[in-house]
């Protein structure tokens, strides 16, 4: 077997490419084919593939050329002024020795850590010692002091640490059966230490229980601060990648943050994650990735992908002994303590995206303190639902600690230098910028002198200092100043301080205008940024002015197709959405056109979604459909499935499809929305609540009442787990829908309870608004069914009152439902005119005009109630025809049941009983599949059918129907005469028939 010469290699190379992309079985088949067609190529290829297998087995070139060393046999030897006494342990980073001072000066014991390190000659001592000195400056009562760091003449790096005698924090807590609050208080000490380190720009990177010791007197000590970086910040990464290779190192990433495992940037938020894992362990005794042994690969996958379950949910009843031993309480009590706020706090620290966690250890501590004080916590998951913050993509600084402010400024300044092509040596500039930074640094470290109080400058303070300084300084170097204003503006935005953010961005825009001119691209960008930040603050007119000026600049530069143009167009579309739909639509279309040239930009999905949304708002659902579909596809392709936006896109797609009466597709979309929300956010998130609710409502409306109720029920549970029953925003919606669905099924009393909760909530939080009016109408509906006319009328009147005062029609209930209430509450003439005046929207081609059909059925019911049977039958008939012919028939069972009932009854009254029979049987059948046996609507069908049987001489069947009806209606304490009177009448008929027979 000779080596392949270059020509042969070139020949076989493309085949090798192909072969390597195929999976084993496909490869074998493909090779077979190749052997027939190009036997010589196939032969060479086979050799290479054999080689490939050998390479994989032997791990050729997998290991880097240099390897760790390992010190042994050191007892009695000295390094620096410490003498080794005995080995203490073997950490993941090397051996640790107990040592004492060999110069006899202090009786202080120390731990000397020899770090596993390859040797490359006697270089790098300076750097190691320099960084060690930085770590050594960390002085805090809860941080184990670094006494010395150095590299021996043999090239062996070592660290001398304060020797801590203590127990691991989890063991400490368990042994003393500390309760939840005590554990949190201990944990706050840990947070204080980490916050101090962050303020000094040191990230721990390896926080785990074994690195957090507690001494006998209860003092917490954190070990190994920043040592991971000292080794080489990427050292951990190397260890992890070797996991996936053969013969990987024993390093377990149990406490690693997702970004550490995926080679992302490590920031202070990484420490926050690890702290959250620690807290999770302390509060539940379990690791967020579950208990039991995992293979390294599984664990990595679990950390990176799987959303952790709520702490309270992993405390199960069978853990009683463990819980008693460790916490001194029962699983039930522990669960109750964790549920709600504490769950939310921990989960916030465990978010996969660093920017969604607590930005600093300080913020983490603050929320825990709020919890202890019984105040509301901020750990509420953000919903991506509402359109308000669309293109205000928060910059991923990842963290907004004091440290990060300094870091970001440094980077910002550095970048400004590059961009301005200013050489480092130009002294005037350098001095100005260095002085600026120095002052900030000093502010940052101002409180380091006082370790007892352990104060540290918060991000907010530093930002304010920076903002104040930048106003008056850096006038010589406008580019740098612009950069700083940008950085500071972004950081204020990240902290949610929009007013300050706006102020700085405004300054920046002014400066850019001066520096670059009125027609510069930079100005357009700056104006757009400013406009974006003004979303909540600032006047509409001003915002419009900014956006239009930005547009003018782009127009003048004849820039019609850049991403900036597109982004600006979307902002304009969003801006005009509430005032000028046509313009909004126009802009959104333009945005899509441009973004289509950048098919890999996630902004394309958002722009498609916008256009679709706007089209659907102006009732052009057919045109909206393909766009919303595409938004979903593009989003899934670029950001993966699931991602932060997919649930929202799917949900609005579903809504549109429902409007077009494409029910099967709509159901798919709603289900996908739920799936995406669940997978991306986990069970306890607002987006999951929203999607459960929407799916639930959809199912109820399309005749899958039980299933729909289940989903709405789940939404309710999520509400209670993540917020509270009094939540002003979500609770009323959820309770309303839950109540309505229950009532519809037949549980009138139960349903009413929930709807009333919704009413009370709205009354408290949104009095006099159309939101309250919506709830009142629903309440009136149920009260009506229960025969409580006076209350129904009262509710209805209040709703009407609000409608008049706010000049806002309440579109919540459908016209026919409202008409029904109006009629029953003595507003009959209003009802009639409402029904008559109803004009359905321009019918979408092919769509079932559901609203018109409902109104028609309402009219038929009215006619029948007035005794006008011919009209009733005449009105009902076409509805039945339309439904029978429709492919959406199965989704419209409720409507069909109503129509069949009214027509059947009309026929009965017209003496056409045999024609009535199939209709009434159909009505009953439909009701049986959608509502409970106790439902009065079901009873109505039974009663009408009983009347029919009597007409046709079938007394027995009539009797059994009536018996059933009586049982159903009997389960209700209160019921409207709409239901009870027909029962009385048919019972009378039964009695008289029998007496007639007897007689």
């Amino acid at each position, binding site marked *: 077997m000779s080596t392949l010469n270059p020509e042969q*290699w070139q020949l076989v190379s493309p085949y090798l490419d192909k072969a390597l992309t195929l999976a084993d079985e496909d490869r074998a088949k493909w090779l077979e084919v190749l052997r027939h067609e190009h036997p010589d190529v196939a032969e060479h290829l086979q050799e290479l593939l054999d080689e490939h297998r050998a390479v994989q087995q032997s791990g050729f070139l997998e290991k880097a*050329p240099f*390897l760790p060393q390992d010190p042994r046999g050191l007892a009695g030897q000295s390094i620096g002024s410490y003498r080794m006494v005995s080995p203490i342990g073997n950490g993941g980073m090397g051996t640790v020795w107990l040592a004492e001072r060999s110069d006899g000066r202090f009786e202080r014991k120390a731990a000397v850590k020899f770090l596993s*390190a390859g040797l490359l000659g006697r270089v790098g001592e300076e750097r190691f010692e320099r960084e060690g000195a930085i770590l050594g400056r960390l002085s805090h009562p809860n941080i184990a002091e670094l006494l010395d760091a150095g590299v*021996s003449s043999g090239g062996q790096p070592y660290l001398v640490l304060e020797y801590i005698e203590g127990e691991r924090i989890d063991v400490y807590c368990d042994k003393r059966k500390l309760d939840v609050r005590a554990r949190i208080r201990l944990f706050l000490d840990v947070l204080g230490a980490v916050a101090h380190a962050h303020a000094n720009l040191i990230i721990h990177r390896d926080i785990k229980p074994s690195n957090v010791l507690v001494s006998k007197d209860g003092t917490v000590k954190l070990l190994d601060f920043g040592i991971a970086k000292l080794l080489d910040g990427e050292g951990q990464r190397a260890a992890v990648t070797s996991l996936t290779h053969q013969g990987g190192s024993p390093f377990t990433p149990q406490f690693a943050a997702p970004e550490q495992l995926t080679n992302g940037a490590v920031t202070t938020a990484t420490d926050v994650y690890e702290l959250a894992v620690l807290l999770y362990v302390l509060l539940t005794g379990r690791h967020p990735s579950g208990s039991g042994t995992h293979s390294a690969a599984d664990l990595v996958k679990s950390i990176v992908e799987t959303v952790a379950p709520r702490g309270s949910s992993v405390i199960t009843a069978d853990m009683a002994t463990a819980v008693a031993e460790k916490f001194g309480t029962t699983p039930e009590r522990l669960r109750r303590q964790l549920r709600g706020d504490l769950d939310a706090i921990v989960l916030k620290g465990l978010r996969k995206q660093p920017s969604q966690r607590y930005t600093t250890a300080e913020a983490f501590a603050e929320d825990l303190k709020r919890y202890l004080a019984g105040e509301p916590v901020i750990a509420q998951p953000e919903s991506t639902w509402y359109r308000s913050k669309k293109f205000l993509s928060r910059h991923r600084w990842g963290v907004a600690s004091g440290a990060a402010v300094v870091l970001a400024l440094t980077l910002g300044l550095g970048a400004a230098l590059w961009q301005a092509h200013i050489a480092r040596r130009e002294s005037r500039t350098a001095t100005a910028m260095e002085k600026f930074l120095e002052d900030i640094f000093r502010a940052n470290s101002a409180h380091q002198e006082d370790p007892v109080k352990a104060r540290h400058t918060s991000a907010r303070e530093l930002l304010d200092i920076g903002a104040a300084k930048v106003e008056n300084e850096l006038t010589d170097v406008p580019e740098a100043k612009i950069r700083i204003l940008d950085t500071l503006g972004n950081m204020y935005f990240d902290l949610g301080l929009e007013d300050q953010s706006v102020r700085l961005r405004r300054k920046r825009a002014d400066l850019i205008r001066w520096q670059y001119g009125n027609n510069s691209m930079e100005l357009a960008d700056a104006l757009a940024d400013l406009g974006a930040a003004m979303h909540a603050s600032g006047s509409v007119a001003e915002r419009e002015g900014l956006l239009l000026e930005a547009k003018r600049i782009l127009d003048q530069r004849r820039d019609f197709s850049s991403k900036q143009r597109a982004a600006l167009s979307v902002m304009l579309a969003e801006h005009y959405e509430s005032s000028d739909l046509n313009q909004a639509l126009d802009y959104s279309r333009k945005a899509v056109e441009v973004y289509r040239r950048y098919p890999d930009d996630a902004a394309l999905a958002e722009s498609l979604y916008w256009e679709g949304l706007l089209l659907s708002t102006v009732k052009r659902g057919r045109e909206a459909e393909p766009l919303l579909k595409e938004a979903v596809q593009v989003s899934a392709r670029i950001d993966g499935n699931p991602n932060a936006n997919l649930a929202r896109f799917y949900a609005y797609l579903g809504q549109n499809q429902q409007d077009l009466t494409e029910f099967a597709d709509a159901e798919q979309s709603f289900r996908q929305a739920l799936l995406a929300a669940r997978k991306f956010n986990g069970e306890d998130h607002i987006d999951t609540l929203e999607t459960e609710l929407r799916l639930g409502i959809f199912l109820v409306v399309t005749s899958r009442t039980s299933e729909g109720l289940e989903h709405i029920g789940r939404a309710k549970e999520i509400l209670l787990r993540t917020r509270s029953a009094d939540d002003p925003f979500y609770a009323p919606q959820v309770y309303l829908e839950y109540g309505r669905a229950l009532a519809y099924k037949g549980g009138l009393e139960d349903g009413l309870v929930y709807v009333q909760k919704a009413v009370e909530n709205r009354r408290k939080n949104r009095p006099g608004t159309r939101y309250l009016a919506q709830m009142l109408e629903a309440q009136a509906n149920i009260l009506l069914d229960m025969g409580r006319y006076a209350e129904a009328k009262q509710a209805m009147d209040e709703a009407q009152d609000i409608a008049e005062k706010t000049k806002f029609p309440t579109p919540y209930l459908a016209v026919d439902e409202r008409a029904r209430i109006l009629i029953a509450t003595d507003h009959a003439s209003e009802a009639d005119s409402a029904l008559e005046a109803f004009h359905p929207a321009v019918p979408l081609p092919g769509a079932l005009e559901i609203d018109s059909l409902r109104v028609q059925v309402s009219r038929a019911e009215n006619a029948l109630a007035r005794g006008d049977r011919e009209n009733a039958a005449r009105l009902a008939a076409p509805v039945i025809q339309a439904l029978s012919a429709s492919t959406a028939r199965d989704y419209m069972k409720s409507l069909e049941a109503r129509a069949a009932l009214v027509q059947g009854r009309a026929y009965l009254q017209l003496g056409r009983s045999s024609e009535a029979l199939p209709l009434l049987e159909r009505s009953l059948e439909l009701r049986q599949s959608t509502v409970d046996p106790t439902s009065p609507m079901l009873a109505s069908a039974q009663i009408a059918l009983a009347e029919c049987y009597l007409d046709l001489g079938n007394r027995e069947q009539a009797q059994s129907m009536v018996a059933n009806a009586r049982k159903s209606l009997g389960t209700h304490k209160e019921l409207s005469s709409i239901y009870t009177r027909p029962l009385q009448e048919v019972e009378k008929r039964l009695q008289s028939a029998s007496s007639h027979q007897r007689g």
Partner: protein
Amino acid sequence: MDSSLSSLIEAAETGSASDTEALFAALYSELHRLARRELAGRGEVTLSVTTLLHEAYLDMAARDSRFPDRARFMGYAARVMRGLIIDHARNRRAQKRGGKFEITTLENAVEADLADDAELSRVSDALDKLAKVDEELAEVVDLKFFCGFSFAEIATMKKLSERTVQRKWEKARIYLHRELRTDL
């Protein structure tokens, strides 16, 4: 350094072998200087090499009036780095251990695990051969094995997909493995 980095790169790309030499010489001296200053005995040293290369780029680019293409820089620098690492391996073996304190001697270390500078030289020769047949494959090996860049980083640098980079890595390994086998 008289000429700027970008002009050196440009010259090397369009010019003769001596222009390439000039570039390599400049890179070598620069990297060597940085290595002496920066390389510490810590961890898996291949990764500190990437830091080194990043710093080298920033350092050299700072003195430039234009910004040389980072990806191209890395390609050349990785090649030079290969030489540096082999040189260091050779030096280390030759280096005498002395001084005040000796935690361990080289003899205690597991000999078999240490990469032999001779073996590395052979790999280097095979790589030179590979470079003649398919330059990009050799570059991937320099970047990954000698410099320790990850697949993702290489993919970004060379504007390829990660899967493509992995495939190139596999192909390169196949080639090199064959070469070294038949060498014996």
